[in-house]
């Protein structure tokens, strides 16, 4: 058993329902994978409408259901300075209504059609999705196309939803010290790039967002030529093309697409350490982030090597970090890490360890440093690489088993700049990674000056749990 504590926190914000989505591994979308066990892959069909809407169809006829996802190529890192949270706020407001859909009815109509819907926002993309029986696809596609162009917002809806989002922030961040620490670490890691600003936004800036901010952002970024439609499930590409032309196809494109170049990180000259003492911390933990390229920004082969490096170094209980810290040295109760590889701009790798009883932060940090040094100096073995790589490649078989996961994983990559060809060539590129490549990226990117260390320490007295429950025999309703 491996207890994961933090690796889910670095992904996207689910705007509507309380999921945090981890960044998705490429294995999940590699079709032309080179595992002997794989059979013929579903055929993915891609086309573009006249107004610039990119469309991807992933047929899967096993169940009479479809998944529709619309991905806008905009996220929190595209927000105007000082309006943090507006991308995510708009995502909430997209459910409010249009001329055709009365206020608050969007999700209710989907539900009346036996469907489920939701949405999420991250730094680079904003996505909306529905899962429905296949005969309801025309309905949800028409609704999704409608709100791409015809959103209507009342001042009252905006004011109420702002309170909802402030509650969301309290749930996700303010009530949870490890989330607070992660926010601080991201701010330090990205000193200039907007990845340093939380997706949900800073409280004081959320509180100041208004209807004009939301509509301004909507008008700038929501357009067919800035979006990707993914349909997975019991459909044929021709059906989808026809439906898409009748719905999204009627919308005018934006004349000029927005530039998505963001302020980049300057060189960093010194490591940063962030320490948070909090009564609610539960257990001492140490986390370490390093700036790295993402798949979108990496030199050829480097992202693949980083990907495998992190799987060998930090994923699961056969990882180096877990073996050294948890099994051998017994300094940590658990340990792990991940590679945030899917951004438009530079990503990061992360390591974390949850301290064993009586271990100090300094000891735990030193233990992590020991593993980092080992990765830099001796790298990984051929056996470790072979095992991790074949397991990684095999993951796609499991992903291929679920149409909604396929839609999500393909959409994620295509919306952040990859092509279908890139995705399909990925297993080949992964197979070319050598132990030398892995050691090279470890040496190049696990560099102290590009790192941020976060330490979370429980306050000496566990005051939060020191108080006895107070019983109130009658609810005292007023």
């Amino acid at each position, binding site marked *: *058993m*491996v*207890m994961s504590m933090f690796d889910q926190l670095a992904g996207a914000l689910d705007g509507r*329902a*309380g*999921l945090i989505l981890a960044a998705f591994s490429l294995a999940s979308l590699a079709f032309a994978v080179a*595992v002997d*066990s*794989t059979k013929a892959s579903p055929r993915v069909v891609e086309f573009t409408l006249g107004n610039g809407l990119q469309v991807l169809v992933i047929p899967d006829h*096993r*169940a*009479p*259901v479809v998944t529709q996802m619309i991905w806008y190529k905009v996220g929190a890192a595209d927000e105007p300075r000082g309006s943090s949270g507006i991308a995510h706020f708009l995502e909430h407001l997209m459910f409010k209504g249009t001329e055709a859909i009365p206020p*608050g009815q969007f*999700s*209710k109509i989907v*539900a*009346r059609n*036996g*469907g*489920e*819907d*939701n949405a999420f926002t991250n730094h680079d993309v904003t996505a909306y999705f529905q899962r429905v*029986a296949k005969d309801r696809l025309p309905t949800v596609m028409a609704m999704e196309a409608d709100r791409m162009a015809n959103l209507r917002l009342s001042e009252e809806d905006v004011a*109420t939803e702002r*309170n*909802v*989002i402030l*509650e969301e922030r*309290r*749930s996700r961040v303010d*009530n*949870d*010290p490890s989330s607070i620490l992660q926010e601080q670490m991201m701010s330090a890691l990205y000193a200039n790039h907007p990845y340093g600003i939380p997706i949900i936004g800073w409280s004081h800036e959320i509180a100041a967002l208004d209807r004009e901010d939301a509509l301004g952002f909507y008008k700038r970024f929501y357009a067919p030529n800035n979006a990707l439609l993914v349909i997975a499930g019991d459909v044929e590409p021709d059906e989808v093309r026809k439906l898409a032309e009748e719905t999204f196809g009627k919308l005018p494109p934006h004349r000029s697409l927005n530039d998505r170049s963001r302020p980049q990180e300057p060189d960093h000259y010194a490591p940063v350490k962030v320490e948070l003492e909090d*009564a*609610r*911390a539960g*257990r001492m933990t140490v986390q370490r982030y390093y700036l790295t390229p993402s798949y979108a920004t990496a030199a050829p082969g480097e992202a693949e090597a980083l990907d495998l490096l992190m799987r060998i170094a930090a994923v699961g*209980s*056969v990882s180096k970090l877990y*073996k050294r810290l948890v*099994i051998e040295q017994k300094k940590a*109760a658990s340990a792990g890490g991940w590679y945030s590889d899917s951004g438009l701009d530079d990503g990061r790798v992360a390591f974390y360890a949850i301290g064993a*009883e009586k271990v100090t932060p300094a000891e735990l940090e030193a233990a992590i440093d020991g593993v980092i040094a080992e990765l830099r100096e001796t790298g990984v073995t051929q056996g470790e690489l072979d095992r*991790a790589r074949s397991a990684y490649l*095999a993951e796609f*078989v*499991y992903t291929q*088993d*679920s149409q909604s996961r396929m839609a999500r994983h393909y959409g994620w990559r295509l919306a952040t700049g990859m092509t279908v060809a890139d995705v399909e060539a990925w297993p080949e590129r992964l197979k070319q990674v050598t132990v030398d490549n892995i050691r090279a990226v470890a040496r190049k990117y696990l560099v102290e000056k590009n790192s941020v260390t976060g330490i979370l320490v429980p306050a000496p007295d*566990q005051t*939060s*749990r020191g108080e006895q*429950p*107070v*019983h*109130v*025999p009658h*609810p005292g*309703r007023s």
Partner: protein
Amino acid sequence: MRQRGFLRPFARQGVGLAASFAFLAALAATPADAMDIKRVVSPGGIEAWLVESHANPLIAMRFAFRGGAAQDPQDKQGLAYFVSGMMDEGAGELDSIAFQERLQTLAMRVDFDAGRDVMLGNVQMLTANRDASFDLLRLALSQPRFDADALERVRGQIIAGLRFDENDPEEVASLAWDRLAFQDHPYGRPIKGTRASIAAMTQEDLRDYVGRVFARDKLVISVVGDIDAETLGRTLDHVFGALPQASSLAPIADAKPPMGPTREVIVMEVPQSVAQFGHRAFPRKDDDFIAAYILNYIIGGGGFSSRLMEEVREKRGLAYSVHSNLFPYQYGAVFVGNVATQNERVGQSLEVIESELRRLAEGGPSAEELAGAKSYLTGAYALRFESSSSIANQLLWIQIEDLGIDYVDRRNDIIEEVSLDDIKRVAKRLIEADRLITTIVGKPVEAKPKKAPG
């Protein structure tokens, strides 16, 4: 690792949302259209339900032993949970690392999970590695090692997890609620145990649990994917045949949750208070269960189509999340809701919730609400059968709840048969808005606690 709300045939999956047009539902595809469920009995007499599908080169298997955390002895709370954490920590000749490396080499997934009433197993494997994967599963089930160092490691992880949980307002509210609702019944105990009970757990305790619970007479199995009935039959004997035939479960009494009003405030330094509310409900076998299930959808199970979401979030912006659930545990069912609101306004959230519950108990839902609920519940049923592993999960819970192999075909009709009169009667029977058990964790301002004997 939240232990409540496993995916069951009657629990919402993912994000449920909803409302009307019953006539549309009749057009919706049913999962049965695309599925043939076979009952496979092995030469040795072990039964499994199989949906054979060769579309992808994988096999999903789910199984359960009836007898979950409720089988933990009073002084061994957290035992089933501890066992679930140790099942992939070495078996037979393979120590923990060797076992984990073997899993990785086979690209195989194995998870165990301790529920209140069942110990669940979830396995996925590639067809190419089928025989070796089943060999490893057999080893894990029949010869777990429970080595001392692995035991200490998992113990350390569970205790670390408990320390996080002690500071997680949701977890604290939930545990406190269970204590108030179930009291001395096994359901009143924490599934993950306590720091003290986990610290005292021994290898013998784990072996004792496995010896009592991991037996063929309490086993249900579902399999979906790239395997035929004959191969599965042989495989069942191979994987599960080494387990003893007879379990030795402790008898569990029926829980009789008392009614409130009871409100417990647990002070924690957080800006947002987290509350759990609810009371007893009907068991799965009750004739009114389905009506109660539909009613719960209308109350707070239906995401943005639910009354609570409409009143608390959409109209007033009091919370990001508010929802309710029915948990029809084997020995005691409860209706439970959750909400999280800033300390200053949590009292208002709870007032709105109580007032909505009262309104529903008195007047019942409208015809339109019922139609909307039916339309969603019947239409969305097919969505639960999207992947091999989600199909296996559905079939497993149908077996656990003993609903019959034709349940998938019948299920939507059962929903459609509930009338407005039924649901109004059941609303009166189920909901007691003035007798809720409520736990609040945070620093609630309006719901000012007065010290009183508990």
